[in-house]
């Protein structure tokens, strides 16, 4: 079994030594399943930080299902994924912009989501994309709730148990419910309390770059979380 030594990690990756199984392999990320059944990820770019992620110089060549050991003895903390409920509200200067993201729901591929607007927990598992767009919407929504200190109802936890969705999405939604955020989202939150247009536009652009459909759905959800549903 090979041992991997990332040089940096997110603060919520606490075990010094873990054994995990390769779940999915991408060009810049490898996702693993830990013995606690949770997702762990090895990334190569800072911008890709998410909960339980570690930065490594280069991705090793692995096979799905293969077991590896990951040692954090050489790594320092590079990212804290906990959502800190914001002390100052989002800068209202950006409101016209975040209000635009609800328009993403007009994409006719998202029609099924629009039907569930009043009961967003029903969007879990719904919609197009490798991660169903409904999951991205719900993640964005919950993240916004967490960030603005709005209580997140039981219904989301229950729906996650009941409906089930892809393994990755389940992890993603659960992380949001538990108050964790990915770096791209974190940068957006930072920009939202600031007043730099270029910082704001880059942060949004970065989310759209991550996944064309997913990014839009996440932003639509986040914006809905900021404004609410009447």
């Amino acid at each position, binding site marked *: 079994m090979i041992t991997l030594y990332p040089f940096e990690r997110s603060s919520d990756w606490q075990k010094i030594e873990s054994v995990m199984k390769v779940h999915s392999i991408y060009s810049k990320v490898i996702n693993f399943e830990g013995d606690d059944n949770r997702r762990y990820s090895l990334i190569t770019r800072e911008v890709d930080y998410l909960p339980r992620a570690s930065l490594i110089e280069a991705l090793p060549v692995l096979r799905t299902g293969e077991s590896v050991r990951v040692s954090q003895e050489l790594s320092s903390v590079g990212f804290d994924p906990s959502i800190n409920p914001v002390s100052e509200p989002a800068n209202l200067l950006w*409101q*016209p912009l975040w209000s*635009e993201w609800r*328009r993403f729901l007009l994409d006719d591929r998202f029609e099924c989501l629009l039907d569930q607007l009043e009961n967003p927990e029903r969007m879990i598992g719904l919609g197009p994309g490798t991660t169903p767009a409904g999951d991205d919407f719900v993640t964005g929504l919950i993240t916004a709730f967490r960030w603005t200190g709005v209580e997140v109802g039981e219904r989301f936890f229950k729906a996650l148990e009941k409906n089930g969705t892809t393994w990755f999405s389940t992890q993603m939604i659960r992380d949001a419910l538990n108050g964790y955020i990915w770096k791209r989202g974190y940068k957006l939150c930072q920009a939202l309390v600031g007043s730099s247009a270029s910082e*704001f536009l880059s942060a*949004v652009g970065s989310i*759209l770059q991550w996944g064309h459909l997913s990014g839009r759905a996440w932003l639509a959800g986040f914006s809905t979380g900021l404004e609410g549903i009447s």
Partner: protein
Amino acid sequence: MKRVEIIKGEYYDSVTLMLVAKELKKIEGVTEATLNMATEANLHIMKAAGFEVESVNASPDDLIIGIDCPGKLYDRLMEMARSYLSSPPWKDSEEPGEYTPKTLEGALSVLPGANVALISLPGRYAAAEAMKALKRGLNVMLYSDNVSLEEEIELKRYASRNELIVMGPDCGTVVINGQGLGFSNVCPVGPVGIVSASGTGLQEVMVQLARRGIGVKHGLGTGGRDIKSAVGGISSLTAVEALTSDPEISVMVFISKPPSPEVREKIVQALRSSGKPSVTCFMGESPREDEPKLKYATGLEECATLAAALLGGKDVIKAREDLINEYLKIEALGRKSEASGRFLRGLFTGGTLCYEAESIARRYLESVYGNNPLEIGMKLPDSLKPIKNSFIDYGEDEFTQGKLHPMIDPSFRSGQLRIQSEDPSVAVVLFDVVLGYGSAPDPSADVVNAIKSLERKKGPLYVAYVCGTSGDPQNLERQTGILKEAGVHVFESNAKAAIFAAAATEGRERK
């Protein structure tokens, strides 16, 4: 085989439609591909090109795709067209690094100090966006045409009450503090201020001033209808007032077609009261006596010549005389040229350049028709079928509904140029090439390709004017060079080209 298909209710901007058509035309076997919003005018053009549109059930909000190709390719090509529309192949595969706002309000979050909105949406949407912009305290440059007179008046009245200006509709060129917006040539900055009711009129005067070493500080457009009595010159007067109070402006220029009498009087009065030496160019008017501080030009080059004389403290009368002598020499040259055929066709992308050229041609030729003629009875029943001497402005509304302006996409004018050139009765073809920001990257090349593909044994005499400066992105020298290489007679002003072309055609009509 020519077939059409409708895609209902999808909005695509004209640039996207043009680029998709271009991509389809690259494919082997495709003779023609055209994508347009299904406006009446576009359906007419497609019909003239041989597409079966009679039985088509489409509204101007629907997209109509016409393809001419072998039958077996058709389905695949249509699929490709749809695919290109949803994922444009010329765009980067990744999303751009920064988010682009989708609303005016969103844009104001990004640029809170914005002071002008440049609106180039289809006419039916433009007025509403313009009003939104005015209400947010922005001045408006309204590039869009196909905006109704009622909408224009409402916008301008609102602007006037709020110390703002609406430049347009149909305003393609504005210069503020030496910086061009929309279509603009790279010109020096200097002590001249211009108000113009015509886009290419402003460009031509600025280019002619630049050639005389003189710069312009502000060039404010008003749109062509502003000087009519219905609008009452609202934007013209706002602009004149603003230039009057700018201490860096020493000479003022006003360019338009002849205004309604009461508007003309207001404008002239405002120029007189400014206390600054001024030149008016009410194109096509008969010459009238100059006043001590107000000079009357009737042509664009003359206007620049007089403004230059005023600035340099030179004798205006002599300046005019010298110019006339130059014109006489060119006229003589024109009369000596050989041409086979009887008529002149003026095929233009710049509306004012067309207007000025036609007005000059009428001094030499008997019957001059057009799609926007100087004389009411001379309107062509079908702009795609010019007769006798004709001047066609391809930037007119009928050609730009859901289609790009010919200065941006010269292919349509080039196609028509080729068709006209094949007509053995056409002796002279006169055309303009407009350079500068906003214009196509290589407009002369388009025309030269059309000229080179001519099948007619003895082709017409080609005469052209290239409106541009050495600073323009298209490279003036190169644009002029390739035209000359293709045998085109290129002149240094719109007026000179028109004089030569008209003189060369004079007398042939009766043959």
